[in-house]
């Protein structure tokens, strides 16, 4: 679908910033209260066209509320949000034509077969019958659901349902796609399947805003990250930038001989190429935990270890958990108890 400007339905669509950079999603001072609870407390956010923005935060941070406002399901109390050039409050109908939404819970009709689900959405998006049929076939094929096309979605596995949900979001070839915790509740293998699908969709040039509770998911899919907590943006920027801010990755090295643990730790600390913190020894698992900030650093450390002639049994890198990210950004833990907002109540049970 063309994202060009112009006057549509009597209202002008603003899709270029003065600088000339195309903005797919622009959020300014968004506020939403549920009674006493502030689900969103002045959120600012900018997503450039063709990029993937990850919104990272714990339960009740306001992620779902944000997605529901951006997809016109919920009206904000104040603030402004423009998606693909359309104002969420003033131009909801135009906006709905150019977005796709995959909610936290697979929002497919379980009683209908997969094919009928997609055909229905196609018809509701005003595709002629013939095109709606073709599009349903095409997307089932692409999301590897052709064999299950005629079975009710209730017989699908969790991963198949999510894939059907993603396919349904893609029917109208949206310019902006909202994915609200697309892999919450899925097992690791299925999660990887969904990630692959999302990556393919991004390859097609769709702008994606995805919410997640997992640093790993954000790193896999997003190019930029916004960290939210209690309805506020507490950090934002490129993934690498943010990772550096929170202490980057941890390299976990297990020498074949546990006796070499301590000498190796001392050697690496002396070299001075590790990240902010010093190397720690985990005697229980016989591993060495080395903080690294960049790929260069990682390569240098592995090179140094190999140069010492130490035989390695295993070597892995770990991302900081959401909890660690929060601890370093806010000084409090992500799981701090608070009253969930009504909409985010769903988030609570989804874990």
């Amino acid at each position, binding site marked *: 679908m063309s994202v060009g400007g112009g006057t549509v339905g009597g209202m002008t669509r603003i899709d270029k910033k003065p600088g000339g950079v195309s903005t797919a999603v622009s959020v300014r001072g968004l506020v939403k209260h549920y009674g006493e609870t502030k689900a969103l407390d002045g959120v600012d956010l900018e997503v450039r066209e063709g990029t993937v923005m990850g919104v990272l935060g714990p339960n009740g941070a306001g992620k779902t509320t944000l997605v529901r406002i951006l997809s016109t399901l919920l009206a904000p109390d104040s603030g402004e949000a423009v998606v693909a050039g359309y104002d969420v409050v003033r131009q909801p*109908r135009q906006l709905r034509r150019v977005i796709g939404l995959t909610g936290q819970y697979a929002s497919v009709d379980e009683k209908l077969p997969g094919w009928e689900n997609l055909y*229905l959405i196609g018809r*509701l998006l005003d595709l002629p019958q013939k095109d709606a049929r073709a599009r349903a076939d095409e997307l089932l094929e692409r999301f590897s659901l052709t064999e299950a096309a005629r079975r009710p979605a209730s017989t699908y596995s969790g991963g198949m349902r999510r894939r059907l949900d993603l396919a349904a979001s893609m029917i109208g070839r949206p310019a902006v796609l909202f994915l609200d915790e697309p892999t919450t509740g899925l097992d690791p293998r299925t999660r990887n399947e969904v990630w692959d699908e999302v990556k393919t969709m991004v390859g097609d040039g769709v702008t994606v805003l995805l919410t997640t509770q997992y640093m790993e998911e954000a790193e896999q899919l997003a190019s930029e990250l916004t960290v939210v907590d209690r309805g506020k943006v507490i950090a934002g920027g490129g993934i690498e930038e943010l990772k550096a801010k929170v202490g980057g990755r941890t390299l976990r090295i297990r020498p074949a001989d546990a006796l070499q643990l301590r000498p190796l730790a001392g050697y690496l600390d002396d070299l001075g190429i590790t990240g902010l913190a010093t190397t720690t020894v985990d005697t229980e698992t016989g591993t060495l935990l080395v903080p690294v900030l960049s790929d260069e650093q990682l390569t240098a450390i592995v090179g140094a270890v190999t140069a010492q002639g130490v035989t390695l049994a295993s070597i892995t890198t770990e991302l900081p958990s959401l909890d660690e990210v929060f601890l370093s950004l806010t000084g409090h833990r992500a799981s701090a108890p608070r009253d969930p907002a009504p909409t985010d109540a769903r988030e609570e049970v989804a874990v």
Partner: protein
Amino acid sequence: MSATTTAVPTDDARISLRAHLRHTGALVRRNLLWIRQDPESMADALLMPVIFTLLFVFVFGGSIGQALGGGQDQYVQYVIPGMIAMMSMTLSQGVGTGFSQDFNSGVMDRFRSLPIGRGSVLFAKISVELLRMLFATTVLMIVSVLVGFDITNWPGLFATVALSTAFASSIMWVFLTLGVIMKNAQSVQAMGFLVLFPLQFGSSIFAPTTSMPGWLQAFTDYNPLSTLADAARGLMVGGPVAHDLWVTLGWSVAITAVMAPVAIHKFRTKS
């Protein structure tokens, strides 16, 4: 992007009447497919007319028939038109429970994020429930003939079906509203029964109201289920029709005028 598969909006801001009809049609198809996937969901529409007719005719028919100055046969002529009124209300409840299930499954979020008129989803639900009701009415008429009801006045029968359909489609807005505002299908059903029972039994559906206390008669006389049942009797069996017909139509128009906007508003603003 190929031009053939792109949804090109002609008038972006407004949804044309044709588009509304097309969307409603697609959603009607969805609800009909539900029935095909789950034929058991038609059990109530099939069994209710059978069970209630047999129950009332054979359990109460003798004694109420005597009070009417006849017997069981007399009661059959009395109660069958009443059954049409009863079913119009009982089966209407289904729109509320079905709607509540949709909300809790998340599929409603998808519908509401699509560029379709909010009314389409509601109209489709009502259309399919009315089809179910017509099916139940057909079953009722077959059973009624088996227990000795005389269908002599076909135009009267069709007029009755039209009137009960009009009333049912108005009362469905009430149940749709309940379906939108209540937490789950069970609460909708429980609430539905609380509304249903006084209206059904505090009416002339099953027995004449003449022996009821005055205060209750004051209620039953303007209870739309009484007037619908009495209008149905007048149309199908004979007797005065006009007053009951107008009161029933008045109720239908009034309930629709008040509740349709409420239902659409609640649907639109539900978070």
